């Protein structure tokens, strides 16, 4: 854990200005204001100061100064994170990597791209398109989010089941350690000798090092992609259809599900032609060679019909495919239109429990007096319940948080986990105590100390201090035991 910083704000700023353009050592509240939160805007904090270095050497010097003086460092990309992982520390420095925004090179034959961490996710695929290649993980914030942040969060997207998460799509990272050393983890080979530090770094939420370069793998763009939309009059049938496709041996490029509330909100927003009376909607995208897609689309249509779909529609053109996706991709802003505020959750569950989980959630919705709409990365069991609330109504956000906590606990009870892709950050730090016991959490703290002995990197995020866990678990409504295994309901 960090101790009290040994320098004042003015001294620190002066030290940084000796080697960083003074315009990019920000100390005034007005200019620092945009850094007070990330995409999780309910959690805010003003930092001590903000620095925007532009060379790796400058990052090293920042880290050395902060390490010597026990000053917390919060690395930041585009600030699109949804768990307050980039929320500043009030006694610390925000280390923005915004100036590291260069695509260093793309090697079309090796199918790799070398990137500075501030390169936007979508920019990789846009640049690689000239070679018929693209970068697999496509989080919904991909227009803005950066590859450095993707590594920190192990970001996914709608194509994970087939193409994997960030951890499956990177070859190496260059990082600056808490002590200011530059180390390379991974290589141009598909694996390296010894323990897999690249996997450990991926998803470590800025607690283990500052990534200053990333080498990613690129994939050949599929010849064809087509999407089948299937509507169901019952959530259970929709859930069964997900299993049906997969048991049939088809691994869709994307497999998304929406519940009745999300269907209507998304259709109002995008006019995608969704079946508005359906209780569950599946979008199943198949990609590959022309022959393969043709074969699998026909099979998918048949599976959906057999499993009771009330409507089945297959995209016949790129325009139609884009339209069908438009509704899903705009589900968040669509829900934003029907409520002053919404809170996006990120639990994962074994797919077979989808109907149970959605039904329970409806009950909780009544109990808490808050509406909830669900979009679901059905292929990989990643649920995004959107709780609708009004932050201007006193107590409503607190009620929303309590509802959210219950949802995450239910995810753990059925054998899932508290976060599939948004990370723990500050937001879900209390629920870590539900998914892990004290020995496991202590092991995480020990891993952290191996990289960051002084505890300056993103302190207070990701892994809770054990004393808080005991308090959280002992709260009256959290009396269920620390149950890791299968759901009690079967």
């Amino acid at each position, binding site marked *: 854990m960090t101790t009290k910083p040994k320098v004042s704000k003015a001294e620190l700023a002066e030290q940084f200005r000796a080697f960083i353009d003074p315009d990019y050592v920000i100390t005034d509240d007005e200019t620092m204001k945009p850094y007070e939160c990330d995409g999780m805007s309910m959690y805010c904090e003003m930092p001590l100061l903000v620095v925007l270095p532009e060379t790796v050497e400058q990052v090293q010097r920042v880290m050395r100064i902060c390490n010597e003086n026990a000053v917390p460092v919060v690395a930041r990309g585009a600030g699109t994170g949804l768990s307050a992982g980039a929320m500043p520390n009030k006694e610390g420095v925000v280390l923005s990597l915004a100036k590291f925004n260069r695509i260093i090179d793309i090697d079309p034959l090796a199918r790799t791209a070398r990137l500075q961490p501030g390169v936007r996710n979508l920019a990789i695929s846009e640049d690689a398109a000239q070679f018929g290649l693209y970068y697999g993980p496509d989080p919904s914030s991909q227009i803005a989010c950066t590859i450095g942040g993707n590594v920190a969060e192990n970001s996914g997207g709608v194509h994970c089941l087939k193409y994997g998460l960030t951890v499956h799509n990177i070859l190496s990272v260059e990082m600056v350690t808490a002590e200011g050393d530059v180390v390379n983890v991974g290589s141009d080979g598909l694996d390296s*000798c010894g323990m897999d530090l690249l*996997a450990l770094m991926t998803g470590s939420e800025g607690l283990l090092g500052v990534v200053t370069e990333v080498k990613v793998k690129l994939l050949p763009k599929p010849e064809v992609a087509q999407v089948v939309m299937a509507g169901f009059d019952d959530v259970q049938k929709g859930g069964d259809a997900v299993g049906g496709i997969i048991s049939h041996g088809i691994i869709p490029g994307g497999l998304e599900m929406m519940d009745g509330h999300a269907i209507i909100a998304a259709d109002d927003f995008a006019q995608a032609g969704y079946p508005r009376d359906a209780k569950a909607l599946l979008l199943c995208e198949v990609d590959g060679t022309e022959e393969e897609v043709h074969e699998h689309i026909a099979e998918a249509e048949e599976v959906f019909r057999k499993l009771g779909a009330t409507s089945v529609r297959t995209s016949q053109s790129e325009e139609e495919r884009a339209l069908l996706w438009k509704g899903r991709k705009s589900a968040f802003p669509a829900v934003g239109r029907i409520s002053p505020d919404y809170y996006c959750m990120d639990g994962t569950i074994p797919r077979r429990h989808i109907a149970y989980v959605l039904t329970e959630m409806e009950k909780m919705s009544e109990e808490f007096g808050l509406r909830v709409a669900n979009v679901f990365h059905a292929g990989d069991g990643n649920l995004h319940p959107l709780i609708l609330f009004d932050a201007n109504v006193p107590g409503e956000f607190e009620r929303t948080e309590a509802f959210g906590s219950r949802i995450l606990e239910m995810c753990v009870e059925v054998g899932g986990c508290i976060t*599939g892709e948004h990370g723990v950050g500050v937001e879900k730090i209390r629920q870590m105590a539900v998914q892990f016991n004290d020995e496991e959490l202590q092991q995480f703290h020990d891993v952290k100390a191996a990289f960051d002995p002084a505890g300056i990197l993103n302190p207070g995020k990701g892994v809770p201090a054990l004393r808080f866990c005991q308090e959280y678990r002992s709260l009256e409504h959290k009396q269920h035991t620390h149950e890791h295994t299968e759901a009690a309901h079967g």
Partner: protein
Amino acid sequence: MADISQQLKEQVLQARDSGHKLNIVGGGTKAFMGREADVDAGTLNVGEHTGIVDYHPVELVLTVRAGTPLSEIEATLAEEGQCLHFEPPHFGAASTIGGTLACNLSGPGRPWAGSVRDQVLGIRLLNGKGEHLRFGGQVMKNVAGYDVSRLQAGALGTLGVITEISMKVMPKPAASLTLVQEMGMDEVIHYMNSRAAEPKPITAACWVDGKVYLRLAGAKSGVEATAEKWSGEVMEQGDEFWRQVQDMQHEFFAGNDVPLWRFSVGSTAATPKLEGTWFIDWAGSQRWFRGAGELKDMEPAARAAGGQVSLFRGGDRTAEVMHHQPEALKGIQRRIKNAFDPDNIFNPGRLYSWL
């Protein structure tokens, strides 16, 4: 089929109390890997910790005790038309899933299907304090806490005893077919990488003895249409050929007289000029080399090719067998080891002399 985790835990605690070391053994088929085991250490036998704990074909998730033989797992999956997509090498009937993860071993499909590390979703691990911990989960996505599960891949058991593994499994491809043609070693690197850059159902690419082998797999129509467009003869015994490659039963790997080196390098890098013979797999990313020499002679060649080298089998196993680590990384790895196994109980010196 037995859960002996309690017994394993007691053995670890006993070793800790008495200051003894433990060599972790599963099926014992990978004893040749890593540095020579510490002869004074006791044996911790995980081979009897077996059985499938949970398997739901529609979830594509399998949870299994670490001592379970690969063959048993594959037979169970096959009944549901599924498989271990990373094609683990069997070095004998006793090869286990735990050892496969600890050694990070994957077969010819690895660049496309992913490695054993890629498929791991969660583990249970006995650390050096005798704590039986659970990391990751049984779902495709889980970013709560550090990825301790995948950290184990390649650690050769130095961080603890893997007792249970949850992993992603996949449907068996409906059809597969292998194309073979003659090609020189210099030419083949460009050829394999160009093929891999096409959006076609390629799932393996290797070169040995002047011939390049490409495997196509997936929907029958897609496989056949691609085979018609690409050059090369359809190989009659394609599946058998890949099975030999997977299990390192191909004659290139035969015999123990000449050391076997593994170069994990950039797929497009030129093959190093060394005295010996090469087997190029993973479309160029994994290159096997048979030839005499020391690790320090091989390392510059591996570095120039953007990767690392290890002495996979044979040679001097009292010296280092894994690519040299820079000081900063050594420090981090020592501290990670200390975080999991503070008394240095597990597999001492097996990965590096200094760990």
